[in-house]
């Protein structure tokens, strides 16, 4: 167990490699109840969400979700979030555990004056259980009357799992098909146990923070605090696809539009280490002998079986195939910019 914010969370159960491979080949069950929820509701809820987040929430149907950024006036990240449209004028942002209070304070301060809208920190109302992997659907299906095949990727529905009223969302942070189930905390253990029991014969295992990190890295999904934060913009993080370029202005949109048009000095890229070494968070990146960037995430991952990672590099060194040097504890090792994601699940 490690302290993660105010939560005690397991880094691993049976081992990071074992759990990682289970998710890639069967399924893994994650307790991600530390994630926060902030709900935004009222007649002007859409206008509020449009103002504070980068993606175009007007394009969300009820029961649909998307990835987005809570932005600063500089176009950087207060946080990265999933925005759920619960009803026409009711949204839920799923936010990082360590940012709940910061985000909630930020949101309440920045929706003042928008009109009829209120934000509520509802984090304590939900436990969040994620079942991820190629057999996730068939296992969860044995516990619910909801036809899971009908829930498309990044859609959700209310229903029941193991006779508990829940919200079932076809989302995840692993690069696999899977579901995240929002559960009343008092029933979380019951749902957890039911899913593990239902998945036992199929080889479903509990998975911890360690595997969550290696899985999301193979899928090139960003981790707030590592790959982006309040010092890096949405465009620099190469997440232009979560900006609603056609929507009205939002916090930081002027900076982001300018960066999109004119480019940025640096960009987040994926890399593979060519020498035998593992680059990790914080290692310096060198180009032509000059320090030119930093590794934001990196390890040897279990499925891809390569030392991979992400790093900010000068924009003119961001093309796939560009050679980089990384200082791994005093030794300069060769790396190469590669296409991301590092892993893509078979269709």
């Amino acid at each position, binding site marked *: 167990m490690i302290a993660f914010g105010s939560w005690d969370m397991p*880094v691993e159960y049976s081992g*990071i*490699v074992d759990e990682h491979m289970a998710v890639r080949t069967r399924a893994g069950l994650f307790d991600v109840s530390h994630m926060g929820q902030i709900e935004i509701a009222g007649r002007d809820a859409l206008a509020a969400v449009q103002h504070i987040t980068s993606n175009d929430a007007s394009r969300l149907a009820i029961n649909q979700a998307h990835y987005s950024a809570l932005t600063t006036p500089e176009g950087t990240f207060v946080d990265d979030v999933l925005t759920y449209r619960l009803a026409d004028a009711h949204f839920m942002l799923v936010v990082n555990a360590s940012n709940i209070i910061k985000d909630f304070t930020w949101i309440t301060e920045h929706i003042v004056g928008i009109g009829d809208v209120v934000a509520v920190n509802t984090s304590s109302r939900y436990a969040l259980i994620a079942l991820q992997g190629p057999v996730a659907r068939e296992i969860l299906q044995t516990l619910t009357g909801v036809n899971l095949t009908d829930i498309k990727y990044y859609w959700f529905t209310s229903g029941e799992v193991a006779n508990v009223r829940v919200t079932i969302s076809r989302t995840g942070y692993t690069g696999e098909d899977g579901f995240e189930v929002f559960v009343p905390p008092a029933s979380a253990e019951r749902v957890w146990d039911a899913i593990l029991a239902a998945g036992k014969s199929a080889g479903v295992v509990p998975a911890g923070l360690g595997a969550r990190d290696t899985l999301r890295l193979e899928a090139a999904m960003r981790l707030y605090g590592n790959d982006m934060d309040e010092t890096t913009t949405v465009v620099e993080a190469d997440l232009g696809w979560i900006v609603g370029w056609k929507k009205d202005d939002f916090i930081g949109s002027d900076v982001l539009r300018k960066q999109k048009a004119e480019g940025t000095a640096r960009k987040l890229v994926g890399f593979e280490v060519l020498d035998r070494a*593992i680059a990790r968070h914080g290692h310096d990146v060198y180009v032509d002998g000059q320090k030119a960037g930093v590794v934001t995430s990196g*390890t040897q991952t*279990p499925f891809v079986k390569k030392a991979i990672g992400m790093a900010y590099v000068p924009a003119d060194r961001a093309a796939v195939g560009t050679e980089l040097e990384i200082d791994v*504890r005093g030794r300069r090792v060769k790396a190469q910019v590669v296409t991301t994601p590092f892993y893509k699940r078979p269709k």
Partner: protein
Amino acid sequence: MYPSDLKYTKDHEWVRVEGDKARVGITDYAQKQLGDVVYLELPEVGRTFTAGDVFGTIESVKAVSELYSPVTGEVVEVNSALAQRPESVNADPHDTWMIVIKVTNPADMNDLLDSAAYSDLAK
């Protein structure tokens, strides 16, 4: 748990004394702390180390750790096959050796712990 025919260091290496040589690996406690080992950096044959020197690096998915020489001497053998199967450190820690050192300061041996003393330390 900790074989009585091995000696141990407080840095969680084990030593098998073979005449004037010391065969070195890391303990079960160390591999458990590290988790899945994916990479080892070991020295070349001929390198010399003083007891307590860093002789190599071991990396798991989640962490990097240094390897400390339990004794003073010269590296006479390196388990280079480990590069291809670093996971054997997890599977079989007390039978997975990393280097063999020809001991030049036999007095270092007196500083090593026996299995009972190490068991107390690794609780």
